[in-house]
């Protein structure tokens, strides 16, 4: 009985940690989904751009010994800027109906950013500042890591900030109009290119938060996580249903929680295999995602 | 030949088609008209299997077609054209017709290898004949996207004919055509029927519909509101209200129809 109880606490604890960390996946998923919603395209550079932002933030930390909060802020801003550059380089001038070209260009940008990071850091992991990493909240048999709770809270705040911009501001109105009716929005005098650029910057800001929070939760930033984070972000986007923000949030938390379960039972080497299997399960049984409300756009 | 019973298609809460009953007899040129959004194109898409029906049945030559994919229905003898022309733009005119050699005779008469990897003399002759009929004899090597609008329409018509269908569904074939092209189209449709093909014509251009069809069904809001000969339909009060309005009196048969 005692063993069983102990194991139960262990598993629920690890699921809880996963859910908290899953908020970063949710953010990355929202970013992918936001851009997909606006342009009907996948921005493969997105996760890499988010981590690039975190690296800029880290540079601020190393160079001027900025405080953790400033680091997070700089990360978000830098990632927003990278988002804008990626938009111009990979989407702005490629015909809107040519999905293949935009996809390829953004993959090119993914490798470009990845390689820059590898060269700038010699490929080795760097320590990333965290907040509240020495705090541990006690809840009966459970402990909640302060840094994870902080990461979770920031991600939730970021999500609400985004939703506020999308649903309460004129800018967000234009963004949503373009994502729903491109041509009609154009006829109403909305500048589609500007709106798309704004979407990329918004997604970038969010990605910078996600990137720096990922690094803060793990404690290090490493070029090794670029491609895995891209793939996990894509998985979250698809499981959540392409274009669905609530779906991306639910899927992010789901992937975060389940991945720790896989970690607990199967170890770190096999963990990601099961996350990928989870995607196939969804593709076969729920190809339109958790809430099944995704629009069929391809 | 074609029997629709209680055919319905709902998109979410929208009833694009609601309980349509329709019988098209062999050898007919059957017109299906109605205002925009009345369910005409939906009917075509249901008959050839692009959409799955919400309720009802489609029988073709006595066989239940429900659940069969488009390519199976084509081999059973149902071919179509599209409202907005859908050719294979980066294939040549010749290839567009080559790809379409999928009638049940083609499938059964040739072996696997000749069908997919050879071009038998019979196939070449057949494609040359189709090109000739479509007045595209000299354009065989042209990319389909390089054709003029009228030529693209003719090519699509020829591509549908390539399957040697028993029933041909024409989805607004006269859209965007000049008077003269419409007259030509009328002649093509009649020639097609005379070669033994039943025609279901969905059309807005009243000159064409009133000129070539023998039976007309009128749809509005997903329901059939009238049925009869062109003359009867034109005199029908409900139809005039719903759709034809004053334009009915202006329409006249296409040239060469008498």
């Amino acid at each position, binding site marked *: 009985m005692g063993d069983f109880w102990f194991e139960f606490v262990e598993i629920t604890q690890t699921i809880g940690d996963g859910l908290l960390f899953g908020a970063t996946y949710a953010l990355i998923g929202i970013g992918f989904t936001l851009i997909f919603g606006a342009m009907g395209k996948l921005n493969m550079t997105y996760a890499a751009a988010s981590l690039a932002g975190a690296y800029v933030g880290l540079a601020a930390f190393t160079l001027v010994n900025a405080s953790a909060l400033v680091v997070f802020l700089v990360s978000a801003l830098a990632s927003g800027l990278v988002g804008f550059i990626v938009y111009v380089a990979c989407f702005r001038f490629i015909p809107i109906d040519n999905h293949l070209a935009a996809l390829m260009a953004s993959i*090119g940008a993914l490798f*470009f950013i990845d390689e820059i990071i590898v060269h700038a850091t010699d490929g080795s992991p760097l320590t990333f500042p965290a907040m509240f990493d020495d705090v541990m909240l006690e809840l009966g048999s459970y402990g909640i890591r302060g840094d994870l709770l902080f990461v979770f809270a920031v991600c939730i705040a970021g999500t609400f900030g985004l939703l506020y911009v999308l649903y309460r501001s004129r800018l967000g109105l234009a963004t949503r109009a373009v994502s729903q009716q491109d041509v009609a929005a154009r006829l109403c005098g909305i500048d589609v290119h500007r709106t798309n650029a704004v979407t990329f910057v918004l997604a970038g800001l969010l990605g910078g938060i996600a990137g720096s929070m990922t690094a803060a939760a793990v404690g290090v930033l490493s070029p090794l996580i670029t491609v895995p984070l891209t*793939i996990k972000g894509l998985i979250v986007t*698809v499981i959540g249903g392409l274009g669905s923000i609530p779906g991306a949030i639910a899927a992010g938390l789901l992937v975060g929680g389940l991945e720790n379960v896989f970690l607990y039972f199967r170890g770190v080497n096999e963990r990601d295999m099961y996350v*990928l299997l989870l995607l*196939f399960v969804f593709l076969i049984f729920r190809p339109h995602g958790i809430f099944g409300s995704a629009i069929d756009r391809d | 030949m074609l029997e629709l019973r209680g055919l319905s298609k709902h998109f979410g809460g929208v009833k694009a088609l609601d309980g349509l009953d329709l019988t098209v007899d062999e050898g007919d040129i059957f017109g299906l008209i109605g205002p925009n959004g009345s369910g005409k194109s939906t009917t075509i898409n249901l008959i050839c299997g692009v959409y799955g029906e919400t309720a009802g049945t489609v029988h073709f030559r006595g066989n239940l077609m429900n659940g069969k994919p488009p390519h199976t229905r084509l081999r059973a003898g149902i071919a179509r054209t599209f409202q907005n022309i859908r050719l294979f733009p980066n294939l040549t005119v010749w290839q567009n017709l080559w790809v379409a050699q999928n009638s049940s005779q083609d499938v059964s008469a040739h072996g696997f290898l000749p069908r*997919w990897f050879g071009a038998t003399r019979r196939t070449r002759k057949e494609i040359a004949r189709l090109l000739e009929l479509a007045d595209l004899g000299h354009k065989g090597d042209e990319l389909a996207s390089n054709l003029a609008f009228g030529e693209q329409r003719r090519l699509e018509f020829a591509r549908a004919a390539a399957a040697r269908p028993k029933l041909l569904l024409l989805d607004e074939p006269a859209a965007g055509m000049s008077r003269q092209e419409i007259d030509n189209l009328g002649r093509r449709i009649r020639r097609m029927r005379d070669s033994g093909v039943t025609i279901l014509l969905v059309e807005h251009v009243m000159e064409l519909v009133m000129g070539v069809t023998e039976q007309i069904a009128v749809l509005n809001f997903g329901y059939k509101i009238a049925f009869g000969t062109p003359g009867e339909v034109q005199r029908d009060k409900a139809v005039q209200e719903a759709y034809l309005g004053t334009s009915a009196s202006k329409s006249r048969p296409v040239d060469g129809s008498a």
Partner: protein
Amino acid sequence: MSYYLGLVQLIGIHTLLGLSAYVLMLTGQLSLGQAGFFAIGAYSAGILTVIFELPILPALLAAAAIASFFAFLVGFPALRVKGLMLVVATIAFSEFVRLFFFNLSWRVPRGDIEVGPDSTNGFREIRFFVANGWSAWEITAFVWIFVILVMAALWWTDRSRAGAVLRAVGEDELAAQSVGINLTAVKVTAMTAGGFIAGIGGALYAHTATYVDHLTFTVLLATFAIAYPILGGLSSVFGTLVAVIFIQGVLVEGLRFLGDWRNIVFGLLIIAAMNLKPSGLFDARTAQVLKRAVGLGGKD
């Protein structure tokens, strides 16, 4: 000399990889999973020659068959998703395969050593060519026999009705269905053929390199696979070959002085090419103009 022969072998192998994506792209399917089929071919062939001690030819054919079987299986669920969803699904498949081999340990004793895949340490000692005394020339010829066979088969297919049907599906699925083409059959066949070709490439790669590990088969390799036909255009198999020679021969070798910075140039090149020529460097129109210019515009 053997260094350049190695490069010629690599160009042949990457041509196979590119052609495996080419077949799929004709039907309008974009797969970032070709690295996965390549990996299955590489590991299967290696296991067959090293652990089961089969000769190279049956091992290679069996490996290609195994890869095509998995491609066939992936083909069905992949049919339910289109376009960008297919891209995600195939990346996920490829990553799954990579992680599977990352975890695969299958060691058998041979004399006083152990051979076989050794999870994170990779799969070493795939020494069929060395053990049987093949010269570099013979290996190169062996690789290119397969390249030429595959290219000939695809070239011939392309000029036949089957090729036109593949392209028709790629241009407009709805119209293709409506003229009687069985979409499922065509797409799954293309997927299976692509898996087979990638499998051959992988098998050849494992034996020429004598060592593979999971890091060989990343998304970067999958990106190369689709970059070749995109840059070379979909009008002919030769475009893919030219693109491979250009990227692997001219760019990678020519930029050797840049050292590790080459991948950055690769990334920039893709971005630039897609902005300047979004539908590939050789699209159908360009190809037809070229064909007319040299008087090759045949009846079919």
